[in-house]
């Protein structure tokens, strides 16, 4: 279970410094400096880095809990990415620098190489917030050996791109760059990095869905049609009840993944299956939940002026990143099939 002080701290920072104008401003390219400074001062972005490596030394569960809050507030800053970058650097014993970071590669077929001359090569696509990052924590290889490289963003060729959320999803070329520091990371692979990153996204999805439910309930109580609040219509009530179910399911699924990683790290079947379950279920909930929220909000929720899209556009982006529902479902299905029919129930109850 996560530390409530950490969750309360995160909530307060976002409440004070992450309003709708901040999120709209960030989409126009205005870096929310005050928000980032407050986060950095609190130590939250480096929660997954030990004191010895310059971080806050919090538990895995705490970092995930912070991401749930960040998702609730549609935080337009690379807090998940910096957490993940700190975690990746720590896997190789590299101290985390200050400032916003991101990770590369995002895709499991990512191939960033370090040559005999120490120079990097390779290209990473859909890198979140690359153009805002001071450093990129890259999982590269030297020959066949996995190596974590801390790379300064300055000097890298970053081709800006924009995701569904309006957040930066950039293409980064590492060709010719040299790392600030490298260290071996035996056993790590882009798939392993994607596993923990997928778990992070499920927390953000769960948080965003909580916000979407709150907004939808409030809207239905405020909006009057046919002489009464639309909340009084059974059709609307039933839609909102279904939304509440999706929100609860996403939260429970995300908790399962977080618990598994906290207990087992990213290696092994339990972590893989729990992250698969979470990304499939939370990803489905993201789509189903956003659809209901928009239906309840009517035309108003389809305007740029209304803040509903801050959450729904992120939901559509996050469900796709680090493996969508189809990809994780197929992987999970193959795990089940390999074990056979009579092992299905033991598989579902594994760990309890």
């Amino acid at each position: 279970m996560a530390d409530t002080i950490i969750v309360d701290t995160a909530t307060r920072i976002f409440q004070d410094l992450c309003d709708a104008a901040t999120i709209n401003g960030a989409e126009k390219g205005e870096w929310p400096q005050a928000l980032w400074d407050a986060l950095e001062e609190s130590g939250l972005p480096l929660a997954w880095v030990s004191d010895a490596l310059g971080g806050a030394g919090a538990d895995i569960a705490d970092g995930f809990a912070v991401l749930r809050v960040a998702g609730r507030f549609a935080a337009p800053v690379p807090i998940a990415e910096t957490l993940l970058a700190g975690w990746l650097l720590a896997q190789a014993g590299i101290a985390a620098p200050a400032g916003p970071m991101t990770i590369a590669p995002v895709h499991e077929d990512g191939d960033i190489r370090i040559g005999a001359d120490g120079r990097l090569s390779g290209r990473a696509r859909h890198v979140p917030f690359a153009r805002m990052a001071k450093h990129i924590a890259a999982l590269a290889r030297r020959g066949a050996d996995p190596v974590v490289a801390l790379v300064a963003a300055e000097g890298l060729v970053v081709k800006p791109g924009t995701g569904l959320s309006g957040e930066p999803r950039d293409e980064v070329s590492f060709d010719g760059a040299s790392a600030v520091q490298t260290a071996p990371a035996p056993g790590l692979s882009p798939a392993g990095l994607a596993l923990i990153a997928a778990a992070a996204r499920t927390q953000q999805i769960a948080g965003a869905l909580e916000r979407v439910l709150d907004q939808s309930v409030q809207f239905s109580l405020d909006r009057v049609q046919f002489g009464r609040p639309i909340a009084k219509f059974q059709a609307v009530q039933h839609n909102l009840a279904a939304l509440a179910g999706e929100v609860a399911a996403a939260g429970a699924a995300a908790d399962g993944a977080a618990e598994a990683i906290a207990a087992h790290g990213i290696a092994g079947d339990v972590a893989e299956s729990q992250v698969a379950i979470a990304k499939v279920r939370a990803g489905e909930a993201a789509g189903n939940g956003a659809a209901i929220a928009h239906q309840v909000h009517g035309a108003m929720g389809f305007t740029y002026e209304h803040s509903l899209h801050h959450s729904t556009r992120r939901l559509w982006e996050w469900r796709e990143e680090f493996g969508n529902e189809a990809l994780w479902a197929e992987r999970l299905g193959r795990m089940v099939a390999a074990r056979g029919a009579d092992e299905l129930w033991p598989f579902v109850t594994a760990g309890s």
Partner: protein
Amino acid sequence: MNNTFQFDPVELPSECKALRQEVRAFLKQEIDAGTFSPGGGRNENARAFARKVGARGWIGMTWPKEYGGHGRSQLERYVVTEEMLAHRAPTRHYSTADRQSGPVILRYGQEEVKKTIIPRIVSGELCFCIGLSEPNSGSDVFAASTRATKTEGGWLVNGRKIWTSNAHNADYMIGLLRTSPPTKENRRHGLTQFLIDLKSPGITIRPIINLTGAHDFNEVVFDDVFVPDLHLIGEVDMAWKQASAELAYERSGPDRWLETFQSLVELVRVAGPQPSERQAEGIGREVAHLATLRRMSLSVAGMLQAGKTPAAEAAVVKDLGTNFEQALPNKVRLMAPPVGDSIPDSNDDRFEQALRYTTLIAPKLTIQGGTREILRGIIARGLGLR
């Protein structure tokens, strides 16, 4: 504002792990002995099976020891229940009493009834049914009109209950009966719960065959049936206050998402170790839903253990769970391997049987024990919409 329902994580204590293995070993033994088949119907040897389960101490697990219960935790009971369901054990003889009727008697029944009836439930002897629905009172449960009229030493019951599952095998019914008219202020007023001995003179039980061809539910007719004062459960006219706790127990258990699980098991079997892309993806999706529901259901058991009454959370689990289990056979159907004359042993095999059975029972899953519409109303109330 925070409208999200909380499903606190539950870690099963170590005694639950040992218990699970114990239940699995017992079930394997019973399957091997031919007591039941995980692929077969649900009524085989249900009475004998209940005695065996009772002897193991797995009925009335959470009930106080002074009435013959076992004083164990909700989580231990949860583990036993889900293992029974996942293996399709024939729990029908005791499951209603274990889940609902026993807790109601313990909470609202009279001392002498608790002392005499509860131990006979715990042993696996007694079978219960629930008398709620009537011809003109389905989801609108507080519209019940079957009357209980005061007479010397007890009550005289007249009227009809319908859709009463397993009444033909049951020893007792807990019935919701009208003792006073509703009031203007409270239309739920005037109903009372009674323990009714189904062997009493004046009771006629008629089968109603369902669309699967099975005899599960019944019409139960009462013609001047005498019920002693001793069998009054709780306060006269105040049953509406007693019903909600009962439903929290009923609504979130593994029986609300495991009813069609067998179709998925048999699909995994026929799909084999190298399933097609379509099968692998489809199986993975359903397993993701199942595992998440289980987590939520377990969480409700944890809340019950902590003494809470998570009514809205239980309704969320039942709504999601029954929608899942209802949709599952159709998903499975579309993932089925090809059939054809060139494929031996594929006519009426285990897979086809499981798919046929689960497809046929699917419609009832979002009706029994509170329809989807009723559940969504409860959830909406939990959200502050009504």
